[in-house]
């Protein structure tokens, strides 16, 4: 006869305050700036709104969340496809948005990459691109869901139920909101569940070599392992 196992202490632990799952809806706004050369891109990078930098890095990663094989951001993609500047494209593609907790720092970093490249490749500055770069921006609406977690099991269940938009909102966009090299899930696990090591483990899940669906699976696996 099988005996029911007692739930682990971690499973019984209740959060000091619950985790409310939100999600976000995004709308792409077409901006007035266009770049027909790398020189014009550089000008646009200086003057475009923060929403544009966000759109072409954070949001475009979300729009292509299903690709494992090398889509990173629109600037890298355009440098490669329309300008045929492979060296610049590689440098831009190596940019990891998780290292940035503010758009202004991210903007400075992108500008520095393009400026440094043009210093040693000055003829590339004016060379006409095959297709213009159209600066866009993102309008975002945050939507509360009805899914709430008060313990680890509910948290794991919630992660499996919510859309990938919600995963992106809490796991990736959150860095800009929190101004921390962390994410909503890790912050909650650390501060509300006293589970620092698990919080750290989640924060190390790689978003560039996995699809967002893979990221969700990895997070759920880590939580279930901790339970």
């Amino acid at each position, binding site marked *: 006869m099988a005996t029911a196992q007692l739930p682990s202490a971690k499973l019984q632990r209740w959060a000091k305050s619950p985790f409310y799952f939100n999600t976000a*809806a995004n709308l*792409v*706004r*077409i901006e007035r700036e266009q770049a027909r050369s790398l020189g014009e891109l550089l000008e646009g990078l200086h003057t475009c709104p*923060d929403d544009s930098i*966000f759109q072409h890095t954070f949001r475009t990663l979300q729009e292509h969340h299903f690709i494992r094989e090398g889509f990173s951001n629109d600037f890298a993609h355009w440098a490669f496809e329309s300008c045929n500047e492979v060296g610049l494209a590689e440098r831009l593609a190596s940019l990891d948005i998780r290292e940035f907790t503010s758009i202004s720092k991210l903007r400075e970093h992108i500008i520095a990459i393009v400026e440094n490249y043009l210093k040693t490749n000055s003829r590339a500055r004016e060379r006409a691109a095959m297709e213009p770069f159209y600066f866009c921006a993102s309008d975002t609406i*945050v939507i*509360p869901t009805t899914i709430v977690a008060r313990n680890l099991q509910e948290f794991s269940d919630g992660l499996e139920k919510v*859309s990938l*938009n919600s995963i992106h909102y809490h796991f990736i966009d959150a860095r800009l909101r929190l101004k921390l090299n962390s994410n909503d899930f890790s912050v909650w696990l650390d501060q509300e569940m006293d589970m620092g090591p698990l919080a750290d483990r989640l924060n190390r899940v790689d978003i560039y070599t996995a699809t967002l669906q893979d990221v969700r699976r990895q997070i759920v696996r880590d939580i279930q392992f901790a339970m």
Partner: protein
Amino acid sequence: MNDHIQEEHATTKEIPSAPDVESPLRERRKHPRISETPPVPAPPPRLEDYAPIIGQAYIDELRYLAQRLRDKSLKMVNSTAVGGGVAEILSQLIPLMNELGVSTKWEVITGGNDFFEVTKGFHNALHGGEYNLTKDAKEIFLHYNEQNRRRMEFVEDFVVIHDPQPVGLIASKQNTRGKWIWRCHIDLSNPHPDVWGFLRPMVEQYDATIFSSPAFARQLSIPQYLFYPCIDALSEKNKELDDSYLDKVCDDFGIDRKRPIVTQISRFDRLKDPVGVIQAYKLAKKYVDCQLVLAGGGASDDPEGAVVLKEVEDEAGSDPDIIILNLPPWSALEINALQRVSTIVVQKSIKEGFGLTVAEALWKNKPVIASAVGGIPTQIVHKLTGVLVHSVEGTAYQMRYLLTHPEFAACLGRNGHEHVKENFLLTSNVRRWLTLFQVLLGTGHLSGPGQT
């Protein structure tokens, strides 16, 4: 479908000889069984019907978004009730908006032949064609817009005007409380300056515009948003089909499912370059075995279509593996089946609008080879969700490559399907509309980067 693709590298293997086409298939190709009557239209799908496709969480999100718009009303206005892409989009969109609790009406403007002649001229001119904008043409355009404006009421919270024909209805805005949006489905990247100069002051009175691609937009003083054209995963053209039906369609058209099938679906129009597709097929066929299916319409009711069809038949010559199908407009199920049985889908257009046949093929997990024109590069990220080409030779090479590298082809198909699921489905556009209305109202929880 890729199990019959040859695994060897095309450059290192012997040139295969095309198997003899069995005589019943050969006969069928000469006399394909084409449906002569339109089928009875299916009832529109309900929101929950999409849950197995996009996931319950996405359906729930649409409901959360719509909750904030429950007391709001919407009117869509265009110029045709049936036929054409806009009417098709509206007939799919409006039942879903109503089901979500956003009271939505659809009205169609009326006009005489003189009005539609002028608007057809405007349409071509806005695409960059030559046009002589006369005083008469302007008066006819404004007269019918004014006539419709007096006939219609605009009491809704949102009024969406589709395309240039009814753009003059904006004259009613000053007496209404609603937000006015102009949805432009055409490419305005290179408009005739006189026609655009005439329409632009009207457009700039709207609260916002929507374009299908950043490349199609103009620099305007009002906000411009990006809504991709979309396909309906549950429509006749895109829904899942039984394998037995796929067999039947192949049997009707004389297609051998055991051998690779390369397909282009498009009307017989030089801008779709069907002759170029045959030339690419002939180059590829030196190295790999395959059949080519060219299926589309437009040759029965369009004199130029008939000429192009003849050119295509001449280019095909006596090759028994080229199957040319001039289909009637009610062939959505057959087109769906042809895309599903294809090993590769090609869209070798010379000029293109958004090119939604690409999205249709990607949705069916097909590796797509397509020209980098119009909206196609938005759908195909080169070597990630398909391959982009610029020539007959490039198309031929990619046919050879994909037919001999099935794992890569399958990966493109998988990524392409996900790309459509994320960006080009009807439900994605429902979400965009609901988001746009909240952005325009300034309601909901607006968040910029770094804000909570």
